[in-house]
């Protein structure tokens, strides 16, 4: 791994975190004093991904805009790492006409044809469409691949099993990535999954599987590189499980009373850790880190501005887009 790559990973993670911090601020800004989920500029559930940046950055670094990505109900870090237009994505999250879906979809339903990005609010159900994208790529004889993300909780859903089997059977160019953040809302991994590592499930589909510990973006990058190379070469799918961290609540408003590890979370934040590592390695300086953060903030605030200045959809258009 060269220095530039590591700096790029850092940049992507910082951009993603900066974005989530801005959404956190905007989401809660007008839901005070009493939290009302439906109030304010950003109504509805809001699943933020702070802490999970290493997964998105490490995987998507290997993807091209013509590769497909399907993400989950917690999609922002992945969308950002894959290069979805930040302005349009933000406008969508704000429910504006200038959004990716003209405000129809919102934060769980981001669709970007330019980068073949999509996500779904139904756990594990983003995997099957990824197979179809991979199938289309395979049929066209291209070397394009699909990356399909899911949570460790979702890996116990039937769609997971069916998708892995079919992808392996047809040798589809897919990389399956499980983001194991230890929790599915309030249910800990130990109460959802009968095995310690989902990589153990890969053997049941005859595909390579690997678990990456410690939320380590370098390790994710390395493993994902192998998996993407394999897929591009026509050697079929791979399953990666990455042990990551849900730094905040499942959704905003989650009191997390069920969570015993709240106190230690800050110490496990992967971004300061990576910053320290890069500084120690002489790749990053405190000044450059500050610049990167500033650039990220500027980019994010521009996107928020774009969103806020985009018009709200007209009520009369509610039936538009039912059919093409």
């Amino acid at each position, binding site marked *: 791994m060269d220095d530039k790559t590591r700096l790029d990973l850092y940049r992507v993670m910082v951009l993603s975190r900066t974005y989530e911090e801005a959404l956190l601020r905007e989401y809660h800004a007008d839901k005070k004093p009493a939290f009302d989920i439906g109030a304010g500029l950003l109504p509805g559930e809001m699943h933020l991904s702070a802490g999970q940046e290493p997964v998105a950055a490490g995987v998507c670094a290997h993807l091209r805009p013509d590769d497909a990505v399907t993400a989950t109900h917690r999609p922002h870090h992945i969308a950002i790492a894959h290069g979805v237009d930040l302005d349009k994505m933000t406008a969508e999250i704000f429910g504006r006409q200038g959004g990716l879906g003209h405000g129809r979809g919102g934060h769980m339903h981001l669709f970007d044809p330019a980068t073949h990005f999509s996500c779904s609010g*139904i756990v594990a159900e983003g995997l099957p469409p990824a197979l179809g994208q991979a199938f289309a790529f395979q049929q066209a004889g291209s070397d394009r691949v699909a990356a399909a993300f899911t949570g460790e909780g979702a890996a116990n859903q039937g769609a997971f099993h069916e998708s892995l089997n079919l992808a392996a059977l047809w040798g589809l160019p897919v990389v399956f990535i499980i983001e194991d953040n230890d929790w599915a809302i309030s249910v800990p991994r130990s109460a959802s999954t009968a095995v310690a590592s989902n990589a153990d499930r890969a053997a049941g589909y005859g595909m390579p599987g690997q678990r990456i510990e410690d939320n380590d973006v370098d390790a994710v990058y390395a493993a994902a590189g192998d998996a993407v190379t394999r897929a591009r070469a026509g050697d079929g799918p791979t399953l990666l499980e990455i042990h990551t961290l849900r730094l905040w609540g499942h959704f905003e408003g989650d009191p997390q009373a069920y969570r015993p590890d709240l106190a230690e979370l800050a110490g496990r934040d992967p971004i300061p850790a990576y910053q320290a590592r890069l500084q120690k390695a002489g790749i990053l300086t405190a000044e450059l880190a500050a610049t990167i953060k500033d650039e990220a903030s500027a980019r994010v605030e521009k996107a928020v501005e774009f969103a806020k200045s985009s018009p709200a959809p007209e009520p009369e258009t509610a039936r538009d887009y039912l059919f093409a």
Partner: protein
Amino acid sequence: MSVTDSATAPPRGGVRRLTTARAVAEGIAQEMERDPRVFVLGEDIGAYGGIFGATGGLLEKFGPGRVRDTPISETAFIGLGIGAAVEGMRPIVELMFADFFGVAMDQIYNHMAKIHYESGGNVRVPMVLMTATGGGYGDAEQHSQCLWGTFAHLPGMKVVVPSNPADAKGLMISAIRDENPVVYMFHKGVMGLPWMAKNPRAIGPVPQSGDEVPIGRAAVAREGTDATVVTLSLSVHHALDVAEQMAEADGISLEVIDLRSLVPLDRQTIMSSVAKTGRLLIVDEDYQSFGVSGEVAATVAETDPGMLRAPVVRVAVPDVPIPYARPLERAVLPGPDRIRDGVHRLLKA
């Protein structure tokens, strides 16, 4: 979203008032005390108390043996409920959002709903499938649907849709005691959740006693003479609001029927009211076509269309997914403005 719902108002004039969420949880708790066969399964129904508060406090009271968080495996755990019911237990299984039915519908309608019939009555499946429905808070296409028409269409399961705390408790008790599978659909907006917009009709008097509210009987939520509004769940609240307003502002007298059950459907109560008023407005937060609103209208058309002094009016979701952006969501949901407009159209005709 708070783990337990603390919105219990102090007794007023001796009458104890609860939110709907607490009323549901109380009904379950009383049945669990009465009957050791009752247990609860689902995602986040334990320590979290249910994402919409319907199981708040149960884990603390009954422990993890009887109040079990599950993996995100709806097919497996709804099926587990079915098998346990077949063996004599009384499962209450929560499907977190009705919108998720698609990952487990085979267990629900090909198994839960059919085993009793297929077995010629020799096997019973006494279970409750409890699920949250409805929109209005910006949760978009996959988390805002009512879908009760979908459940009601498929035979073999009863379907109940309470609109207020007392009915919610009483219908839960009936559902648990019923020898048949009962789909218990609560709209998030009727639960009185502290993290949603305040809704005064989501808190109300609830009897301490474990009395049943019978499944299959509609309620006349408000008497009136000019027109009948047949509706259910959260839309009952909107219809009552509109009825009160229009009574005062326009001197219009609306009769509001709260269906409470879709299966069995209390066609008699609908017909009696329409016989009186001659005008029918149906308000439904589910998709309009091929659903509840059509069935209610058809009931009149096949009984005596001559009763109708004006064409039936339907106010429902106009056959589009529920959009995210607030102005769009408002445009498709049957809120007070659309109801009022429906009444005007009905009375003008």
